[in-house]
């Protein structure tokens, strides 16, 4: 469903993403792991058409992201790590705006909005301005916006930041539901337990390069530690080694 081929991104002399290739199967939950500054957000921004890669190609749902950007973007729902939303719109107005941008059929707009608002318990605040929302509420309204147009692919960057335990639980349950209904979920996270609990496939990125990818069992097999948990393997792979 998502295919990255030899993708690199350079900012001046700094190489943020170095020649990575990934393939995400349809209907799966894919966890993208890495320490701070590893290149996760840059990769996600390239996958959602926000940033142009320096080289390589990205295909989303069969559409080349840079040849047919509008078609590709129409099937993606995106939740950024910092959900800045127009502060002077109400939550509901923002969702109307998203429905119009993504051309949701007029007859389905209210139904879709009510559904996502209920799903993320945002109904009581739907008519308040976004500027009055807490960080967690903004995260939830961003999640509503990502799902209101019923995308085929959901890309979520650091979803657990700012969510309360109820919100985090609801969020994990909703991701499982989406995956069951055929939505492909691409998830970048620091929470290894979330990745372990949800993901069918994983990739670990470090200093802009993919260290390893596959199912959890495949990664265990590759690393030669069949009984190790994800945290142990992650720390082992991403801890700097000093040569003497």
């Amino acid at each position, binding site marked *: 469903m998502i295919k990255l081929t030899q993708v690199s991104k350079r900012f001046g002399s700094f190489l943020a993403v170095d020649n990575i290739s990934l393939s995400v199967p349809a209907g799966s939950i894919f966890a993208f792991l890495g320490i701070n500054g590893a290149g996760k957000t840059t990769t996600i921004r390239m996958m*959602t058409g926000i940033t142009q890669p320096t080289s390589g190609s990205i295909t989303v749902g069969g559409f080349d992201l*840079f040849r047919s950007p509008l078609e590709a973007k129409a099937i993606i729902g995106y939740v950024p790590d910092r959900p*800045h939303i127009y502060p002077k719109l109400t939550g509901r107005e923002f969702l109307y705006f998203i429905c119009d941008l993504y051309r949701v059929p007029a007859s389905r707009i209210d139904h879709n909005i009510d559904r996502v608002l209920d799903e993320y318990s945002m109904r009581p605040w739907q008519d308040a301005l976004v500027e009055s929302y807490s960080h967690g509420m903004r995260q939830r309204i961003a999640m509503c916006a990502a799902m209101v147009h019923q995308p085929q692919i959901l890309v979520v960057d650091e979803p657990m930041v700012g969510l309360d335990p109820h919100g985090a639980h609801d969020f994990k349950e909703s991701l499982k539901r989406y995956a069951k209904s055929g939505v492909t979920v691409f998830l970048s996270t620091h929470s290894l337990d979330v990745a372990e609990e949800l993901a069918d496939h994983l990739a670990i990125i470090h200093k802009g390069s993919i260290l390893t990818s596959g199912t959890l069992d495949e990664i265990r097999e590759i690393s030669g530690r069949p009984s190790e948990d994800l945290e142990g393997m992650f720390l082992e792979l991403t801890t700097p080694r000093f040569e003497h």
Partner: protein
Amino acid sequence: MEVETSKNDQSQFRARAAITLLTPPVLSIKNRWSSRYGLPRKELFSALLTVMMTVGLYACCTTMLRELSQPLSHFHLTYSPIIAALLAAMFIMTLLSASVSAMSALYASKDIDFLLASPVSEEALVLTKVAEITLSLFWMLFVFGIPLYLSFGEALSADVLYYVISPILVFAFLAPAVLFGTTAAILFSSLLPARGGRHAFALLFAVSIGLFFAIINNGAKLLLPSATQSSSVLALLSSGSPWYLLATSSIARSIETLAQGNLAPTTWAIGACAGITTLAWVITVVFFKKLFRRTHTKLQVSSSPLQLDSRLGRSVARVLFAMTRRGTRALITKEIFAFSRELTQTLQLVMLLTICALYSYNFSHISPPTRVGVEILQLWDVLMTALNVLLGLMVILSISSRFVFPSVSLEGNSLWVIQSAPISPRDILRAKYTSWFSLIVIVSLAIFSAGGCAMGVEPRVIIASAVSGIIISHGIVTLGLGFGARFARFDWEHAGQLATNTGNLAYMATGVLLLAINMVPVTLMFGAYYLLPSVFRDDMAALMLLASGVTVLSIINITVGRVSISIGARALQRCLL
């Protein structure tokens, strides 16, 4: 002893705090020039453009002052009235801009919560914000001020004292304007009720305008019996007589005597300005201490003042913009909601509309010269009709530089929403064009019709002026969007910064050039109509003439529009990908 040391530390820390708080904005400017992510091309281009504009303005001013200084038998020119008028205009401009910037820097800035939570005194906080406001305003004054300063120095064959002391004097003269503007913003924000703030504001402003007109009509007449219009206030400010002690006249005369090497009046003027600045500073600090935190809290708590009902707004947009695409209409609706709820934007619009009202009022009081021949009266008609179009378009350009130019940058941190949405850069610019051009058409119609009616010209001339104005407004708006996208800056701290960046300066300079180009066919059209009555007073011939003029204007402005939108879309494409 320990307590004593701690107190000393505290006072030293307080003294340092203001400087410490100013480091982030200074470092931000420095980092923008950093070459870590490649050459800062946008900044280099802006700097180059600024230098070119400054040099161009210097050349124009020098030539103009040289022409004016030619001895004429019936006309004796001294420079102080011109300097006084310029100082008066700069003071008013600084005062208005400072109040708008202060509103934005104090109550809508992203760093304000962080600063309030920091262990810094209120004096340090207000000093930082005043410095920030001053920096944002003086950038433009600097660009316009330097050429004027050098030109006047040359025209006055100034002594070296002029070049050293006059900038200090002008700065000391304008500093109270910044402080009074800041105080006005603090006071006004504290007066805003928790809900329905804008309605209260509109009422307050309407009353202020009424009072302003009443004072001009009656007060100016008392002081100067010949004064019947608001422009006479400027004449009063610059004439010196009978207000010998008026600041602008005194400062202007000090500058003129300074150029002759006489320092004494300037020392007094600087002393007086420093005194007024100190007083203004004390007033600002007192108001800040008394009102700021309470107002800040009030604005935080009452953050849902919905001025435009969601459903009504959407329905109106659906009817008004039925012909546009859905994505475009969604963006237009979003723009309307965001604009109607942003106090700083509303404040600026009301100020600019006040200028429109003053403009129309002044036109209604201009009467043609008496005891002159028919030819002079015909020339007068051409001059006034062209002037109506030109001045009206200058107002449109001001409105556009305040609202259209920053509209792309105003997406700010929410840019990801349209970046990741299936909408093309051209559609984004089209939506912004539709929103702003609709508003500007209404303003244009009001200005040109009111100006024409006030002058009592023929209906066909009023229609031709209004149509020409709308066509040129198309050029101005598209140019604003093109420049706005090309010089887009999404990392602003508060929206007030956007109107004062160098891209906007470049836009205004190019906008003035566009107006100059457009004024050629406008003047030819109205010139032929009034000066050749035997040829063009026939209905069909007049229609043909006006239609030809409008066609030429359409060709110019549609071309400008296409090129601007194309450049803007390409620039936005680079931002979007």
